[in-house]
């Protein structure tokens, strides 16, 4: 009998159809796309002639957005895996300080300082993750503890070692280093010089750099942002491991029973978040040449906000790296754009709060349509 017993497939008369167009629209990034269009339309209308869209202005908000993107990619994957990390901001400060201490105070070669810092910080990320998976505590609490611990050390160590809360002079020591330009350099300098010569972008009018283009290349920060976004997106949507990330965040128990190594996935994502924070810190240190105890304050919230604006679900299992990148772009453009538009700067926070609420409500609506969740 066997096969005969199977009822033939049925279609459900109790569900109305939805149009293909609407179906194409329903994706996690939709909120981010709508937001991006809205934000650019707004600023094109109201701040077009404020310098926001000249080469320097574009580079400015691109750089700021790229910063947000770097930490948002890490936070996004971690959030999809069902956890989040409040220690990102402190990690940024800590990583920068470590590089400064290693290279300036101890005089190690900069490449070594960078590599050791990466190892150290991803190890701390792994520790975070290990505590979370071992104790089953909410990551909120565990990473909140590390927020304080890392910030404490970031203030304490340089005071003890150098009796300052800021350590400078990194640009000098990184002269000629092979690894430093990977984080602090710029690329496509030739292209911009050519553009400037062709009169397409502005040049400096005076000083040592007179005649050179005001924008003399794409900072590695932006390159890193693009690399990390592509990496994160491919990892999440095109690989086996990406499926595991979704599964770990969607229902850890179910995933574990289906053979997904949930603990490993979560710990790796904590490490990746720490890695992104370190990339952020190294780029910053290499660009500015100093590390301070105040670096990265509140960046953990900014990362989470960008990710949530980009459509990910705080409780895990749902989201997209492209969405998070768009969220970071919106965040960066709004933050810088409000300045360009001449809005009183203390109102920035009010806007941020309102945008966050609006984005999240829009995203919830979209997500309900996708998952048929109740």
């Amino acid at each position: 009998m066997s096969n005969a017993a199977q009822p033939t497939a049925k279609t459900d008369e109790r569900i109305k159809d939805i149009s293909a167009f609407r179906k194409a629209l329903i994706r996690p990034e939709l909120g981010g796309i709508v937001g991006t269009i809205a934000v650019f339309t707004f600023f094109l209308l109201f701040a077009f002639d404020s310098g926001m869209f000249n080469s320097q202005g574009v580079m400015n908000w691109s750089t700021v957005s790229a910063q947000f993107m770097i930490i948002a990619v890490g936070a996004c994957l971690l959030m999809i895996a069902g956890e989040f990390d409040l220690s990102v901001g402190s990690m940024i400060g800590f990583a920068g300080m470590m590089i400064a201490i290693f290279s300036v105070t101890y005089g190690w070669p900069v490449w070594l300082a960078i590599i050791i810092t990466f190892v150290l910080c991803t190890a701390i990320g792994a520790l975070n993750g290990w505590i979370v998976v071992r104790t089953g505590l909410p990551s909120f609490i565990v990473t909140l503890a590390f927020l304080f611990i890392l910030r404490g050390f970031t203030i304490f160590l340089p005071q003890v070692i150098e009796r300052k809360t800021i350590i400078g002079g990194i640009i000098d020591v990184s002269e000629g280093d092979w690894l430093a330009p990977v984080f602090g350099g710029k690329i496509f300098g030739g292209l911009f010089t050519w553009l400037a010569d062709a009169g397409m972008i502005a040049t400096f009018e005076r000083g040592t750099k007179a005649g050179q283009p005001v924008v003399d290349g794409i900072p590695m920060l932006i390159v890193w942002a693009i690399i990390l976004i592509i990496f994160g997106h491919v990892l999440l949507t095109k690989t086996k491991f990406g499926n595991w990330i979704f599964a770990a965040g969607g229902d850890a128990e179910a995933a574990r029973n289906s053979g997904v190594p949930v603990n490993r996935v979560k710990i790796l994502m904590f490490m990746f978040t720490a890695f992104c924070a370190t990339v952020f810190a190294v780029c910053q240190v290499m660009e500015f040449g100093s590390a301070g105890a105040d670096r990265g304050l509140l960046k953990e919230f900014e990362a989470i906000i960008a990710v949530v604006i980009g459509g990910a679900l705080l409780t895990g299992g749902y989201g997209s790296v492209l969405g998070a990148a768009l969220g970071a772009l919106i965040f960066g453009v709004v933050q810088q754009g409000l300045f360009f538009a001449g809005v009183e700067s203390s109102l920035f926070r009010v806007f941020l709060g309102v945008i966050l609420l609006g984005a999240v409500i829009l995203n919830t609506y979209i997500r309900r349509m996708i998952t048929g969740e109740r």
Partner: protein
Amino acid sequence: DGERYVLVSHAPDSDSWWNTVKNGIALAGEQMDVEVEYRNPPTGDLADMARIIDQVAASGPDGIITTLADEDILEGPIRNAIDSGINVIIMNTGSPEKAREIGALMYVGQPEYDAGYAAGLRAKSDGVGSFLCVNHYIVQPASTERCQGFADGLGVELGNQMIDAGQDPSEIKNRVMAYLSSNPDTDAVLTLGPTSANPTLLALNENGMAGDIYFGTFDLGGDIVEGIKSGIIEWGIDQQPFLQAYLPVVILTNYDRYGVLPGNNVNSGPGFVTAEGLEKVEEFAGEYR
């Protein structure tokens, strides 16, 4: 007419001292009939401040007034602004030498270490040998420099005499009391601005050391002036933030309009405000003083 000047500070949104600065540029803007704007990194993160300078430069103002809270970070963006044809005046933190080096028109302000050092010398001549530095903004290099300068002026090690007081008034008050009760032979208290001075005043009132312990502070404010008047505070170091904001706007405007420029830097501080001649200070403390 209608020139546009932007002041970029390093202070977080919540820092009340910078208010006087805002009022200073606003008044200058009104008087000179120019457009003025105030920008700052919301959390006080200096890396964000560098981005703001870049951005201000992109918006093409006639001039930028900014601080040099950390040379390493800010030098690049400021140089770029200068090189793209924007006049820059350094205010508040920094030093005349550095300002000249990076190509700014001039420096208006009070070098922090020097101010601390001067205060230390003064305290030493008043017989102070040990002190407590109430640092309410420990992550900011300039704050630490003030304490360091004071210690060097006294000729003692800074060591544990600087506490990370936090920004909450109750925390500051209670930490000061805790420190003083476990180190009762402390000679002097140094606070770094109204944020730490006001709660410290209350703390001293409460533990009975008011008027007894040597109390000096940086920067003025309503309560500080009260304290000076009633003899609890020995002196306040006034760096005249009003002038730091007002003068650059006036100077830039005149430079742009008529090409005139003072030949020297302006040291707006340190000036020691003591119990003598307080009326004007009192009237405008927190607004223009």
